[in-house]
């Protein structure tokens, strides 16, 4: 399971969902694995505004992963800035051109790809801070089926 996925998961229990503490779920006893994949910087830029950045910070801290900046980055921070002063004077045309050409990922872009897409939890648990229930992750798959007494 990707770290990105955790940004869109809460406890499955109806009673927990309205409680702020049901998100994010807290990883425990995690075995992490890097699964390399092609970097798609435009995809990362597109989903960036939808990330809950504070939740991402708390998860990376809990997993002991390298720290993230306190403030969420802007989409343009994920790519290497183009041509500096020269580009500035030429207005719209340059903007269009740069959108068409391949964007080169900045170090931050590469780091986020590694963290969100390539870093996976292979084995472990996800704990709800609201009810304390733990969901198992096995072979990279998280299981949210509830035991009957919790439904």
């Amino acid at each position, binding site marked *: *399971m*990707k770290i*990105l*996925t955790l940004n*869109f*998961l*809460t*406890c*499955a*229990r*109806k009673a927990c*969902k*309205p409680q702020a503490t*049901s*998100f994010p*779920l807290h990883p425990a006893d995690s075995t992490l694995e890097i699964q390399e*994949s092609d970097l*798609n910087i*435009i*995809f990362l*830029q*597109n*989903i960036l*505004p*939808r990330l809950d950045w504070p939740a991402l910070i708390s998860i990376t801290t809990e997993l002991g992963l390298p720290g993230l900046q306190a403030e969420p980055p802007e989409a343009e921070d994920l790519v290497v800035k183009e041509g500096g002063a020269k580009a500035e004077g030429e207005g719209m045309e340059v903007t269009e051109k740069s959108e068409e050409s391949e964007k080169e990922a900045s170090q931050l872009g590469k780091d986020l790809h590694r963290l969100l*897409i390539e870093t996976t939890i292979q084995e472990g648990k996800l704990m709800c801070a609201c009810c304390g229930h733990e*969901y198992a992750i096995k*072979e*990279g*798959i*998280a*299981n*949210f*089926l*509830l035991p009957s007494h919790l*439904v």
Partner: protein
Amino acid sequence: MHDSSEHKQERGEAYEEEHVHTVYEEIASHFSSTRYKPWPIVERFLKDRPNGSIGLDIGCGNGKYLTVNPNVYIIASDRSTNLVQIAAKHRPHSAVVADILDLPHGNHKFDFAISIAVIHHLSTSERRIQAISVILDTLRRPTSAGAQGSKALIYVWALEQKGSRRGWDEGDEQDVMVPWVLKGAKGSGDADKTFQRYYHLYKKGELEEDIQKAGGIVLESGYEKDNWWAIAGPRRIEAR
């Protein structure tokens, strides 16, 4: 309408465990090998989503719809671990094991949802309506300030399918068992094994009715090759 004798067992969660979940877990690999072609309306719906949209595929099966649009991000879920393991291979998306009635997703967060050939496996009217209401709960609501809400595409098997190999039509029993034959491996001497899956066949207008009962709005609906489909949205947040 009378239930046939095999339906005497009371329907609900335990019934679905036996007649839906266990079956899919057993036939997962064979089922998956027969499910690769996306249906046109689902494909269109997914391709129309703006880049960077975050969506759900509820009851994703083998994840065949996860290959349609690589510019959105989908968190897929299914009851069957074996099917989720297949679905999880489709990048950049994700897949988890979950029950449609207890989804591990926050309310009013997602840009779209699809639930294709899933709701018809719930065995009571109440549970089908509840499932639709859970799907609608995941969607962003339209606001009185004019912000658009998000949409769900729901697909169910139709009762009216006279031309199909099953041949059901208007007036027939809607709660049926449908066999899945798992062939024994060639030369192994293993006999073929037949599994019975439960389906509720939707009649004309019933899906729209269920969406309304679930508190949703039907935005578009229709019939495509033996299935009824609808695009539904949550109601507006009322100004207080």
